[in-house]
């Protein structure tokens, strides 16, 4: 089936199979920031934005993306770099494999929550697993980035 999406601000036409998942479609298209980490829709690595909302691209059928606005890290480079600077200064990017999904969720949170508390930050990001950092350095970076206590 032919779908048309707005990918990072540009109209893109893609030929997809009915059982194709958006994570695969986009990676095959060359969107390498999308990583698959679990195959069971629970690790957060493949998070992208669909209509500005963070969703698991590995749980979404590509056919359902037709007509939707999709944002990946490639489309948010400047903002991602701003946060990544803080994250890297904290040393908490570590292996980096989960970073794109994590950072997209952080940036979505920034839009959705005003001055979030630590509890709200942790709640918003619970679906983003990380095996390297132990999460605390990420939290320090987020607080610095958002300027919250």
């Amino acid at each position: 089936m032919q779908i048309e999406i707005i990918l990072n601000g540009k109209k893109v036409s893609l030929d997809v199979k009915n059982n194709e998942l958006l994570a695969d479609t986009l990676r095959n298209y060359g969107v390498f920031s999308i990583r698959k980490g679990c195959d069971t829709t629970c690790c957060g690595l493949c998070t992208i934005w669909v209509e500005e909302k963070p969703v698991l691209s590995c749980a979404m059928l590509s056919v359902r993306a037709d007509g939707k606005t999709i944002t990946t890290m490639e489309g948010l480079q400047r903002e991602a770099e701003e946060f990544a600077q803080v994250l890297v200064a904290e040393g908490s990017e570590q292996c980096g494999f989960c970073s794109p999904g994590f950072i997209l969720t952080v940036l979505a949170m920034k839009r959705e929550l005003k001055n979030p508390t630590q509890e709200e930050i942790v709640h918003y990001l619970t679906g983003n697993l990380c095996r390297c950092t132990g999460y605390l350095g990420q939290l320090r970076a987020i607080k610095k980035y958002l300027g919250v206590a």
Partner: protein
Amino acid sequence: MNFVGKSIPKIDGMAIATGKPVYTEDMVPPNALVVKLLRSPHAFARIKTIDTSRAEKLENVACILTYKDVPNRRFTLAGQSYPEPSPYDRLILDEIVRYVGDEVAIIAAADEETAEKAMKLIKVDYEVFEPVLDYEKAMGHPSVVHPEADVHCNFDIGMDKERNIVSSQKIEVGNVEEELEKCHIVVEETCYTQAQAHGMMETYRAYSHLDHTGRLVVVSSTQIPFHVRRQLSRALKLPASKIRVIKPRIGGGFGGKQTGAVEMFAAIVTLTTGKPAKIVYDREETFTATNSRHAMRLKVRLGADQEGFIRVVDIQGLSDTGAYGEHASTTFGVVGQKTLPLYNKTKAVRFMGDVVYTNKMPAGAFRGYGATQGTFALETAVNKLAERLNMDPTEIRLKNLIKEGETSLVSEGIRLGSSTLHRCIEKGRELIGWKDKYPRLEVGEHKVRALGMAVTMQGSGIANIDTASAEIRLNDDGNFTLLIGSTDMGTGSDTILSQMAAEILETTIDNIIVHAADTDISPYDPGSYASSTTYVTGMAVVKAAEDLKKQIVESGARILGVSIDEVDYDGLKIITVNGDNEVTLEKVAELQILGFGGKRQLVGNSTYGSPVSPPPFIAGFAEVEVDKETGKVRLIDYVAVIDCGTVINPNLATIQAEGGLVQGIGLAMYEDVRYDERGRMTTNNFMQYKIPTRKDIGNIRVVFEESFEPTGPFGAKSIGEVVINTPAPAIMDAVYNAVGVRITNLPITPEKVFLAMKQM
């Protein structure tokens, strides 16, 4: 110090954080064949017949390989220096399959869908055997996991494979039984640790192709490129000179990628077809068909005198290596090596036991490597002993632990070069609020909070075995290339090594190009494991940098026409002592390489292996809250005070510690490994096998109490592994102090706590 001791950001940080294509799968050529593996549904069986004819006929299937198509030379996938202590007990594909998930056939096709379709068309007829699933019943089981005659051991590791024993070990100094008789108090505890999964976010993956000279190139997410080259050479009967292994950025390893997994499957497809081939394991394969921590049963006996001196430490163990013997004997040996030296007022110590084969997924290397298991058992027993002696757990340790400059019964006369462990304990108990909170506080009708603690040691590299080389070139325009073969898997080791080089060469991080790791280019390094990179490779880098610096000074002095005693080097130029003449580093480089000054590019070299493996230490303190009605444990606070020698990069060391502690918390509380009665692992994804989320961990505080290790680069020891060891025993003890039950069988789940409380 300009760079050492500074929180320099990782040199690859921005690229990996912002999603750049720098990992293995991002680089696969678009025409690569997709490799999939047909796996055994049986825990133990022989392939009677295998028919691939229908599958082979499918359009776009490139090749299908079975045990009949692979070389018949056994090898080990353990990433260890040659000659490996792990038995050569596996083939790429074998007629006998030894666990559910063992590989039966290799399928290569143009696309994934075809490969999956072909897999379904392969017909296999199995002769199914009774599997060995319970490792406590493996010894002498009627089923022999490795009946074949051609298993080979490079060393005598005490193998008795007819009885399913891979390795038998015993070390004893003094007479344990006699000394126990003399003790005032003897405590005993038997602990079980589970086969923890690494759960690195990037699953196992590799791709291969032939280069312009027909050589096999394998790009792999591995911690051990040089070992992989050797494995492939042996497994494929191909000279090592025909193989190149490249490691890009790695999405986590934790020891899992210290064992080869996928490389051989891609490689044999490329060799068979001449085409590029890629293999990417899914999460289920990563859980069920790679490797894990060795599950162990450890029985500890401690004897103490009336004054509270620990006189005897006796540990008897049984370890489950699963279907193949990767890291079997060495992981088990580390249990003793990292426990027996700790309490050095002993008169007799012993570590003995067996490692057995079973029909389950093979175990392998996992951060902590036996020390984690040993620490859990020993520290649990020490906490129990403290209670019996009516001593504070911190005091019994302050009284008994080895100190800097001391030896232990097993240290063969070598004095401990550095330790601040006693200060770590004092600092830690202050931070956690030991005085006010130990042992417990009731905090409501059914909630109680309590403290527990544990200490641990690890090593730094493998003494007298693992040896790393480093090379630093002065390039034509005055910058440097640091060539190393260690494998930064996210830890930041490439950055740390460049900090060390920059410090010695008095240059900046920006002025150093770091290259790692490519077996065609990198100097030899065993890889990043055994807590070796900062300490062993680091020392090689320091020495290579010193070597190069000496050459730069010599060259500069020669150009200036004076002796080396008459010049200074400040990182930018060589200047005569009296300041009347100078030559820039760029000019030195130019003249050495391009001009007629030296006609020799300056290259610093070093190969370094350490005769000792200095231990880093940690004192860990846990505060838990236990719900007395449900048995649910919540970790409130964790304090780890760490002696890793000089901290080269405080931020990166802190994250190593926090990450390791959380992995240890997972081991303690959440990460359960379950098999069904047929030997199928049921905890085969992140919905069933729960690694901690950010809501599961409570507050964690990491503090460094630096020592100076005389044998380490800038006084550094290791940090990567030691950090995982204390949470399990400390949390377990805290739960005991809260509600009076010792959950000696990890993980500590609500139901176990609840049931144990009911049985009180």
